[in-house]
C-alpha cells in the first residue's frame, strides 16, 4: 500500500508518468546510444579535418601572395637594356598587377645570409631580379615565358610559389568534404533515430492504442518517445564527442615538420565547436522522433 502511494505520487510529475506507461525498449535504447556515440565521434574528426584544411588553405594563400620572380643573367653591358625590355613585356602582359626591378640594396640584403654584409654586389656578375605581383585572375605563364625568351634572352621566370596552388585548392576541397561529411553524418543520425523510433513505436502499438482510448493526447504519447530518444542520443553523442576530443588531443602536436598531419586538432575558440555536437544531435533526434511519432499516431483513431 505504501509502495502504491509512492508510485502514484511519482505519477504526479507528468514526465515520469508518461515515461512509465511506455515499457522500456532496452535493445533499441542501447543501439541508439551506441550509434549516436559513433556518429558524434566521426563528426569530431570531420570537424577537425575541416578546420585544419581551412587553416592550411588560408596560410598557404597568404604565403603565396601571388608573387613570382624574373631572373636576368646578361653581360654587364646588356643588363640595363634587358631589364628594361623585361619590364616592358611585363607591363603589356595581362594579369600582371605590378613588376619592379629590385634595387642593389635589396639584392644585397637577399644575399647577405649567405655571403655576409661586405659582399661587393656591384662588382659581381649576379643576376638582376624583377619581382612580379600578379592580379587576381593571374597571368598566362606559358605565354609570358615565350615572349620573354623571344625578347629578353637572359630572362628566367621563376614561379616559386605557383606549385602550391593545386595544394591550396585541394585543401579547400578537403575542407568542403569535411563539412559535407558532417552534414551526411547528421542526416544519417536522423535516419537512424527515425528507424529506431519507428521500431519502438511499432513494438508499442498496443500500448499507444490503449493510451489513446483512455484519453491521452498525441502530444503526451509522442512526448514519451521523443524524450526517450532525445535523451539517449544526447547521452550517446556526449560520450562520442568526449572520446573524439580525447583522440584529437592525443594526436602528436605540431612540430612544424609534419605540416598537415600534425595540424589535425582544434585551435583557440575552435575547441568550443565540438561542444555543439551533442545538443545538435539531440535536436536532430528530437525532430526525427517527433515526426515519426506524429506519423504513426496520425494513423490511429
Amino acid at each position, binding site marked *: 500500500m505504501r509502495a502504491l502511494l509512492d508510485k502514484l505520487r511519482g505519477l*504526479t510529475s507528468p514526465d515520469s508518468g508518461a515515461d512509465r506507461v511506455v515499457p522500456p525498449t532496452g535493445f533499441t535504447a542501447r543501439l541508439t546510444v551506441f550509434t549516436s556515440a559513433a556518429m558524434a565521434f566521426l563528426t569530431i574528426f570531420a570537424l577537425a579535418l575541416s578546420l585544419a584544411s581551412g587553416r592550411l588553405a588560408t596560410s598557404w594563400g597568404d604565403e603565396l601572395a601571388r608573387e613570382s620572380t624574373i631572373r636576368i643573367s646578361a653581360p654587364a653591358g646588356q643588363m640595363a637594356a634587358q631589364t628594361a625590355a623585361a619590364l616592358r613585356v611585363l607591363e603589356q602582359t595581362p594579369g600582371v598587377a605590378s613588376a619592379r626591378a629590385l634595387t642593389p640594396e635589396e639584392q644585397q640584403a637577399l644575399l647577405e645570409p649567405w655571403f655576409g654584409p661586405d659582399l661587393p654586389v656591384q662588382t659581381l656578375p649576379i643576376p638582376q631580379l624583377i619581382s612580379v605581383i600578379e592580379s587576381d585572375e593571374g597571368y598566362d605563364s606559358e605565354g609570358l615565358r615565350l615572349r620573354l625568351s623571344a625578347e629578353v634572352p637572359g630572362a628566367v621566370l621563376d614561379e616559386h610559389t605557383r606549385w602550391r596552388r593545386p595544394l591550396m585548392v585541394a585543401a579547400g576541397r578537403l575542407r568542403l568534404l569535411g563539412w559535407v561529411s558532417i552534414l551526411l553524418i547528421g542526416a544519417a543520425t536522423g535516419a537512424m533515430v527515425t528507424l529506431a523510433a519507428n521500431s519502438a513505436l511499432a513494438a508499442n502499438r498496443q500500448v499507444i492504442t490503449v493510451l489513446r*482510448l483512455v484519453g491521452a493526447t498525441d502530444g503526451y504519447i509522442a512526448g514519451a518517445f521523443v524524450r526517450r530518444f532525445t535523451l539517449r542520443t544526447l547521452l550517446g553523442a556526449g560520450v562520442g564527442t568526449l572520446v573524439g576530443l580525447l583522440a584529437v588531443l592525443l594526436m602528436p602536436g605540431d612540430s612544424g615538420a609534419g605540416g598537415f598531419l600534425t595540424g589535425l586538432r582544434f585551435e583557440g575558440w575552435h575547441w568550443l565547436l565540438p561542444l555543439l555536437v551533442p545538443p545538435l544531435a539531440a535536436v536532430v533526434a528530437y525532430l526525427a522522433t517527433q515526426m515519426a511519432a506524429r506519423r504513426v499516431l496520425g494513423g490511429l483513431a
Partner: protein
Amino acid sequence: MIELENVAYSYGSDALLTDMSLQLAPGAFHFLTGPSGAGKTTFLKLCYGALRPTEGRIRLFDQDLAQMGRDDVAFARRRIGVVHQDCQFLDHLPLAENIALPLTVSGQASPEQVDNLNELMSWVGLTDKYDALPPELSGGERQRAALARALILSPDVILADEPTGNVDWEMSQRLLRLLVELNKMGKTVMIATHDLMLIRAAKSLVSARNLRIANRTLQAAGVDL
C-alpha cells in the same frame, strides 16, 4: 451528450450499421442488445470516437465529431468512461496503475485521487490485486478492473461493453447496482450485453430503455423480456 444522426458504418464494402439515430441524454440508462456480430461493439466505438461514421453525423458533447481535432477527441474521451469488451490494459503495469491510467495521461494523478482509487477497487472487489499484472488476472477480475478504470475520472457517460460477461451472478448484480448508483447521480449509462437476466434485474432498480441492433438498424425494444 452523445448524438447520432442517420449514422451508417461499414468495415468493408458491406454496410454493418445503417441509418442509426440516437440521443443519449444526461441521466439516461440504456441497454444495447442484439445477436453476436450484430455490431454492438462497433456502435459503442462510434459513440466514443474510435470509429468515424461512413455516413451521417455524430456529436460528442455538442461538438461535431467530423470537426473535432485529435486532441478534442482525446478530451471528449476523458468524459466518457468505456469498459472495453477486451479490457485493453497495459500488461507491463500493475493493476492499480492501469486503473489510474486515465488520471495519469490527463495529468490529474494526485495523492487525493488515491482515496478515489481505493474506493473503486473495493467496490469491484479487487483490493488484494493492487500489484498484480493484468495477464495474471482472471477474466472476471479483468472486467471488474476495466469497470474501475472507466469510472476513475468520474465521467459523464459510461459505455460498458459486456461488463458482466465473465463474472458470476452475484458479482454481476453488484456491478449493476454500482452502475445504477452512478446513474442516479446523473451519469448516462449504456450497457451492451447478452445477459437478459441482467436486464430483467435492472428493471426493478431503474427505468431503462432497451435498444436492439438487428438487421443493421437500431430498434427500440421492450425491457419486458
